[in-house]
């Protein structure tokens, strides 16, 4: 109780301090002066004025070329005169303290005629350090565009806008985070995207109460419909082509300043297994690859639990020819199958985690050392069986096939409940786990739209681009999932017209 009171008191005094120092321009300047990179400069000459700016976020060249020469060459006595002379747009004259504080923190140059003046001139001159646009590293694709988002929101918006040059592409911006004041852009195509979805996103992001938003994954977790689910309910991607692709389907993209990945929603579980490659290959190949990926995921989740269940409870399921192989390789193992599996799964998870944390060059070595040396040694030392080593390695390999990184982590995790189920009740345990997860998935929503669609609710129209991808001329309708305002992509009649005498 006492502690709580103390905390409230501290907070109050901090708040009071803020208003005391911040309630005047003078106070603000005094506060900023404590930082070394805040520059106060008295410009004397034809124009007598004071310049204030934070040099680390200011473009120095701009100051030297466009501001100082004008002040030096002209005798200007009012802020309006300066405003007229300086060749930049968006110059504001204001005495609103809140605006001054915000703009100066964003890299504006503040000009004051007299120290005691309340009115100041603000010239935008911010410079933001960013990385160059590079090739995607997480969602690499062999064919197709090779641009990936960077940490700057404006660059990212540029990458989207250049792909969708139409006035309906709307960018709404919100500022989230009490301390970080992060710019969050909500992008959608007006006239395609359902306003209900847009409003859901705007409202949810607007309601976020948190001090800092460092990455878009913060937003995913904060606005997801069920934050206790291991399944990500917004798809994150670093590919601008993917984002512009889903925008035209009527989905909504969320971009966060400082984050190299965008979020899209409403999404479905099958979208996590579709790669952008799927659209760059012919539809048969794309469909085959998608089915392969789906198989890989099911394989990855279920093989080790099946191994445990069959070896512990259902011996009759082992084919007779495999019997001797399994028994001879298990004969020397001192552990029951479940422990054997957990040991090996943990080893693989350790390798993955170590590989992800270490610098690239060391990471590769660790992969080789871990995979070959530990694997072989474990078998030779009689800790695990050969058969299991193959199964675990294949399962790990299969879990890497997911095109979206986030769902890969989920698959990594949900294997363990299945393992426990397999040890408890054998195949019944696995089925129970499966029933639980499917039940959970059917209940899950993404921005209020069903996450397990097009399977539940069953939507034939959306199945055309789910487990298989039908050719483009069959996809004349946008997915029902997003409830688009305009659901027609193109006129199927014209697209399917036979052009026999094309020359």
């Amino acid at each position, binding site marked *: 109780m006492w502690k709580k009171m103390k905390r409230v008191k501290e907070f109050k005094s901090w708040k009071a301090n803020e208003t005391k120092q911040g309630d005047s321009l003078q106070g603000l300047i005094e506060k900023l002066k404590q930082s070394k990179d805040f520059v106060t400069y008295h410009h004397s000459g034809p124009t007598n004025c004071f310049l204030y700016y934070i040099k680390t976020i200011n473009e120095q060249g701009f100051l030297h070329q466009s501001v100082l020469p004008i002040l030096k060459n002209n005798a200007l006595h009012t802020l309006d005169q300066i405003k007229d002379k300086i060749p930049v747009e968006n110059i504001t004259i204001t005495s609103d303290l809140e605006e001054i504080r915000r703009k100066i923190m964003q890299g504006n140059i503040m000009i004051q005629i007299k120290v005691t003046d309340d009115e100041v001139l603000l010239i935008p001159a911010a410079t933001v350090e960013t990385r160059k646009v590079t090739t995607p590293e997480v969602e690499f694709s062999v064919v197709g565009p090779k641009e990936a988002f960077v940490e700057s929101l404006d660059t990212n918006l540029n990458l989207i806008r250049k792909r969708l040059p139409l006035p309906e592409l709307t960018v709404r911006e919100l500022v989230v985070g009490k301390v970080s004041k992060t710019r969050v852009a909500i992008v959608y195509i007006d006239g395609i995207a359902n306003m209900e979805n847009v409003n859901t996103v705007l409202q949810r992001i607007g309601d976020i109460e948190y001090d800092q938003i460092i990455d878009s994954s913060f937003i995913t977790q904060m606005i997801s419909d069920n934050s206790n689910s291991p399944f990500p309910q917004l798809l994150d991607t670093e590919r601008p082509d993917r984002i512009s692709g889903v925008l035209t389907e009527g989905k909504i993209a969320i971009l966060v300043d400082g984050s190299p990945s965008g979020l899209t929603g409403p999404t479905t579980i099958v979208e996590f297994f579709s790669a952008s490659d799927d659209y760059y290959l012919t539809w048969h190949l794309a469909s085959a690859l998608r089915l392969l990926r789906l198989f890989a995921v099911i394989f990855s989740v279920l093989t080790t639990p099946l191994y445990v269940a069959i*070896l*512990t409870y259902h011996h009759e399921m*082992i084919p*007779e020819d495999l*019997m001797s192989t399994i*028994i*001879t*390789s298990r004969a020397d*193992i001192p552990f029951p199958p479940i422990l054997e599996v957990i040991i090996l799964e943990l080893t693989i998870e350790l390798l993955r985690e170590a590989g992800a944390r270490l610098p690239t060059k060391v990471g590769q070595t660790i992969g080789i050392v871990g995979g070959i040396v530990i694997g072989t040694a474990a078998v030779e030392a009689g800790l695990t069986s050969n058969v299991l080593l193959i199964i675990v390695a294949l399962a790990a390999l299969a879990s890497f096939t997911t095109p979206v990184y986030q769902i890969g982590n989920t698959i990594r995790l949900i294997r363990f409940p299945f393992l426990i189920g397999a040890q408890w009740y*054998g195949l019944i345990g696995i089925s129970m786990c499966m029933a639980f997860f499917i039940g959970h998935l059917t209940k899950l929503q993404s921005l209020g739209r069903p996450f397990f669609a097009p399977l539940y609710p069953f939507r034939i129209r959306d199945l055309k681009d789910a487990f298989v991808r039908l050719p483009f001329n069959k996809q004349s309708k946008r997915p029902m999932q997003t409830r688009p305002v305009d659901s027609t992509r193109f006129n199927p009649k014209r697209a399917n017209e036979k052009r026999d005498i094309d020359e």
Partner: protein
Amino acid sequence: MNSNVLRILLLSCFVFLLTACVPSTSVEDVDTILIAGYDYIDDEQIRGTISIPQFGRLETGGSMKEKYLSSTANTVKEVHAKLQTKSSKPLTVGKLALSLYNEELAQNGLGEVLDNLGRDPQVGRDIILGVVEGSTEGFIKGKYSETETAAKYLTGLIRGNMEKNFPTTNLHQFLYAYHAKGMDGYLPLLAQEENYVRLTGIALFQDGKMVHSIPFSKSFIFKILKEKFQQGTQEVEFKNRHIVMENIGSSVKYHVKGKGSDSKVRIDIEITGIINEVSSLDVLQSPKMVELMEKRFEKFFQKQCEIMVQDFQEYNIDPLGLGNTYNSQVRGFDINKWKEIYPSLPIEINVGVEIVETGIVS
């Protein structure tokens, strides 16, 4: 704490607490019975013999080793309990492939043994049952192959023949026939000869007791009467020569008519075949000849089938399941009445043979 979390915690608590009762053993820590054989000792006792594969520690296993255990007791369950006392690891029947009975036991009734098999969920429904001439103990212990277990050898033998002339048989079918109204089961009859096993014929049962058998040479006839099949071969004498026909598709249909004592059964058999072997080449393969051959085959099959069916009627057994068909098609089936009329039931057999090919010699 909110009630949902509490509920989940409680549930997982139960899951933890209530699971101790599921016994589990890893696959290498059990002895898997591959073959089980039962011999008749006297009216009270039966002797059970099992074969358990022994897997080597090295992956390059070498020859297959097997362990054999035998025990004598009053009931099948007791036999199993006694066998367990002779084994270091728990015995499981999950991989049971063959269950064998000697002729004497079969003649005294397999009811008890079958009940035991039928109730066990671990036992697959597609395991093979068989009747052995002589003792099953010696039969199981006979070393037949260097590279495979006796179980594999025997199931291979029976399954291989099931693809050809021998009728399909497994636990499921036998149990169905055993429990069905108006149907009797049959099992393969096996005999051990020196270091191999021979399929000698078909053992025919009545209410779980073996009452009759037919030799292997007649199994083709039995099979065309019993089921749809392909790939069997049958030899027929034709103009003092032997010709062999390969069946590439045959179908059989039972038609039942009438009620009570004026019931009638018609069996229609259609066979499509190719001529596989003619003992001398001078039999010209002209279309006319083929027609004659077809006629000859039809006559032969008709005759053989009639003899076989009459044989069944004499013994009052119904391995074809005519009563079962009757039950499913005619209202008011009475099994006792059927048993009365079955021996004198008029059964008409029509066989149609079509020879589509005579080989590439011509």
